[in-house]
């Protein structure tokens, strides 16, 4: 018998908050990999992914909508906006590494506008000046009461990633913070 295909129902799909200070948008679904790679295998994994895994703390690498975010000395979050099968790309890498599909674990938000940094700073204690947190900078940090991965995609644009069940909280918090703004 034929079974109807289950459709994907992303949480908060299409939600957006717009204020004069900042816009908070729920990012479209993407594929994601939690990647753990020992130093010796970084080159092989980079080659398979077509993106050089950054090894400097807080750094990222980005090409064609695929982003590798440094989270720790042997840990990266890879996001592919086109939804490519990232785990499949790594099938050829025989050396020890761990690539776990977390596409559905995370939800992404785009925070943009002149008040983007201030919106995030409502709940994130990091210094988000361009000098301390330049475009491309990444940090696994907190947004008030939840853990997030923060990725600066532009001078006035950030991507915030959190786990699925915290998405409601993240969106509500960022929306409230964007509304408050500051003089």
């Amino acid at each position, binding site marked *: *018998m034929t*079974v*109807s*295909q*289950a*459709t*994907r*129902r*992303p*949480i908060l799909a299409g939600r957006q908050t717009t204020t004069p200070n900042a816009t908070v948008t729920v990012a479209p*679904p993407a594929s994601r990999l*939690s990647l*753990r790679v*020992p130093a010796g295998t970084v080159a092989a994994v980079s080659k398979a992914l077509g993106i050089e895994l950054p090894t400097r703390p807080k750094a990222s690498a980005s090409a064609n909508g695929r982003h590798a975010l440094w989270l720790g000395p*042997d840990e990266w979050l890879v996001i592919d906006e086109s939804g490519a099968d990232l785990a499949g790309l790594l099938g050829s890498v025989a050396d*020890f*590494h*761990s*690539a*776990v*599909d*977390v*596409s*559905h*674990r*995370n939800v992404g938000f785009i925070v943009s506008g002149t008040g983007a940094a*201030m919106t995030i*700073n*409502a*709940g*994130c*204690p*990091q*210094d988000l*000046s361009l000098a*301390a947190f330049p475009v491309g900078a990444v940090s696994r940090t907190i947004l*008030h*009461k*939840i853990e997030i991965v923060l990725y600066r995609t532009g001078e006035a644009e950030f991507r915030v990633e959190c*786990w*699925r*069940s*915290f998405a*409601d*909280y993240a969106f*509500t*918090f960022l929306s*409230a*913070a964007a*509304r*408050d703004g*500051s003089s």
Partner: protein
Amino acid sequence: MTETFRMAGAGRLTPAKAVRFSFDGTSYQGVAGDTLASALLANGVHLVGRSFKYHRPRGFLSAGAEEPNALVGVHRDAARRTPNVRATVQEIYDGLSAVSQNRWPSLAYDIGEANDLGSPFFSAGFYYKTFMWPKAAWDKVYEPFIRRAAGLGVAPDEPDPDHYSSLYAHCDVLVLGGGAAGIATATAAAASGARVILCDEQAEFGGALRFETGARIDGKPGWDWAQASVANLKGRENVRVLTRTTAFGYYAQNLVGLVERVSDHLATPGDQPRERLWQVRAGKVVIATGAIERHMVFADNDRPGVMLASAARTYLNHYGVAVGRNVGIFTANDSAYAAAFDLKKAGVQIAAIVDLRDDPRGAVIEEARGLGIEVLTGHTVTKTGGRLRVSSIAVAPNAGGAARVIPVDALLMSSGWTPSVHLFSQSRGKVAFDDATQRFLPGQYAQDCVSIGACNGTDTLDAVIEEAYAAGENAVSGTKVLRPAATTSENWTGGMLGAAPGAGPDDTVKAFVDFQNDVTAKDLRQAVREGMRSIEHVKRFTTNGMATDQGKTSNMHGLAIAAETLGKPIPEVGLTTFRAPYTPVTFGAIVGHSRGSLFDPTRRTAMHGFAEKNGAVFEDVGQWKRAWYFPQAGEDMHQAVARETKNVRRSAGIFDASTLGKIEIVGPDAAQFMELLYTNPWAKLEPGRCRYGIMLREDGFIYDDGVVGRLADDRFHVTTTTGGAARVMNHMEDYLQTEFTHLKVYLTSISEQWAVIAVQGPKSREIIAPLVEGIDVSDAALPHMSVREGKICGVPTRLFRMSFTGERGFEINVPADYGEAVMEAVWAEARKHDACLYGTEAMHVLRAEKGYIIVGQETDGTVTPNDAGLDWAIGKKKTDFVGIRGLRRPDLVSGGRKQLVGLKTVDPNVVLEEGAQIVATPGQPMPMKMIGHVTSSYWSPNCGRSIALALVVDGRDKIGERLFVPMPDRVIEVEVTGTVFFEESGERLNG
């Protein structure tokens, strides 16, 4: 009413825009820019409150944040009633409604004033002495009395409708205080391009330049220089200036808490937050908090109309308001003279300057006499006259002699200036007493901060400007910036500490030291006489400095009086430590966004909406909302759970198990890692099979449990309890990074990657079979405790054959965004087979019927696998795992431990209470010997009776025996049984 005390041509509130407001129901007019205090004074109103203990009439002492008297309630509407607002800080807006506090029936006629007559009863230590005996009276009489008398103002009884904001910020230099020093240091620091934040509690920058008319900086009047400088700072990208922003707390590593009052001064706050909490991490903190003028301590120094000299100058020079028409001055220093000059020049009569100093010299004396003001040197004010407003002062020579009564309608006083070392002290810096000037100044620093200006004891304006510029440059290693020239005609030094001659020494006069807590010079002397030696004791005994103003005007006087009474120098008596907050902070500012849905994250599974549509009642499990039960029309919880539990065993039930923690363990050493973290053996578990695992702590006690599936040689899918998800992950990562660093293993949390649908019951296979592709779900191909990867409804699945009910069961893992669609498809199939949806309550009953434990319910951190009857889960041949040595401890292997058993009540209809204690025999004398407790207890529809699990000393040896559960109203007799109540053979698991 008209503003009869607003002086034409005086002040800076121009162009004057009229603002209407009310106080105690009377409507008044003020001017935009007024504080409630200046606006009331413009209307001739001095009486604004009643004192806390004696209910004495009180007026404005100050013009700033140090105000101890003028605390009012500000009522925007029914839900916005803010008590204890300092009228000297609150700006007026159209429609502001303020009320006085601590009076009944009215401010002018207050019954509580009788306390003033009865004051001998309310002396220092009154509460400690009076409410001692009899002990029994405490609950019924004393405490209610004290609680009724305690506290000022009335809190609103509706939820706060305002919202509050928060912000973290970083800067190179944080400047606390926007007077001449703060502005100058910010200017110097900003010149180098460093990030600077400058904040001030007032609505406008300028600090003491608000009233100090003699100051000239850069060729301009001080105030004009301040405004021009701040305008310049505002124009710089690297500078943030914050007005109405109080630095209230100085914490570790230069973290400073600021509270910004965003909209309290606005008639229509709109959508703006009421306040914003800033948490600023600064490279360098510059403390430029200035100094606070002290009052004089003499009899009846608290009458409305008696105030600080600098306050009167502020009201005149900034707000254009005269505090009286015939004003007296009582001083022990030069700075108060300037108040007399300013008022005199504005046309106010100066009744006299009473100078405590015997032979003051200098320009101010000459100038006073030149202006025709009578100066009485070597004199003191011995008391004041009047009731609701000062009407006269009695003046006598210090040396003694007849007093002369001088009519006044206001008295300005100054005994000198106290450097505001509060924030320096909060930074853990040590203050040092400067003998020459009789004041505490910043001594040893504990953090990377610097004090400048008046708070650092720098008295002359040119020195302040030089110090401020140097500090600003040093803070950022910047280049030298050109200093503006600064001069002032005023002298801020000198003064006296402690009681003036008019305060006693030991009569019945009330010479107030602490206005807000009604502490007099006599109280402090009495405290010393009664044995208090340390200032910490004196303070607590008298409550001096313990009100919401934190003793900003009273601490030094109190200390000096105690020191004098003790016959010791001031530094030997000590200074109490300053603590946050500098001024009161609202709970709203502290709470910020953390209210309503942002109080705490509410976590919902991917199938939450499905459960809602199907009528689920939810329960909170940590931050999760879990479907508790699914009542049908007319069912209560008991009936719904009874139906669900029977339905599962009759046909099948569907359950959302998504909240369980899940961890993917990957690497060639994955099995070895599992061997070390769990008690069970894993090496020989074949890919595609599952095992129930138990995890211990080092001490041998159960930490967590869950079913683990081996997906491949080098890949495990571990499940944990819902509550254990985060801590088990951390526990594993800890061991991997510290103890087992040789293992090639990586851990990834996949709790939220997978939504989990449990399908349990005899019909479970028929339900899922049509939906699954690529997996043979027959009992032969997919036996109990196995796992396969394939597809369901066209999407990837990890399909577990496992059971937490004792029935044939499956747990379908699908990527979370597919969870709800797959759930709907499963439910559509399930309905063809008489299945039900069930919630956590039925899940609990079903597992208890089979004796399956829940970690955290049957275990409490002191239960070993053996205690729980789970010895079989320990790999007997294993030589190492976390907790193996703990399990060999003598106490863990000896007899007499509590063991998990079943309990059946002799009356099958009685359901025990969870947590109830168990005894061997009833009727023992109290306290009875307790030998165990009930861990789980339910009505079991499938057994047709109550069932319970319990931990009982040597329980397994007691199976078949009768024990007793004493309850408040009866004793329940129970029989000890095994832990499996339903189908002991376990055959149903295999279908």
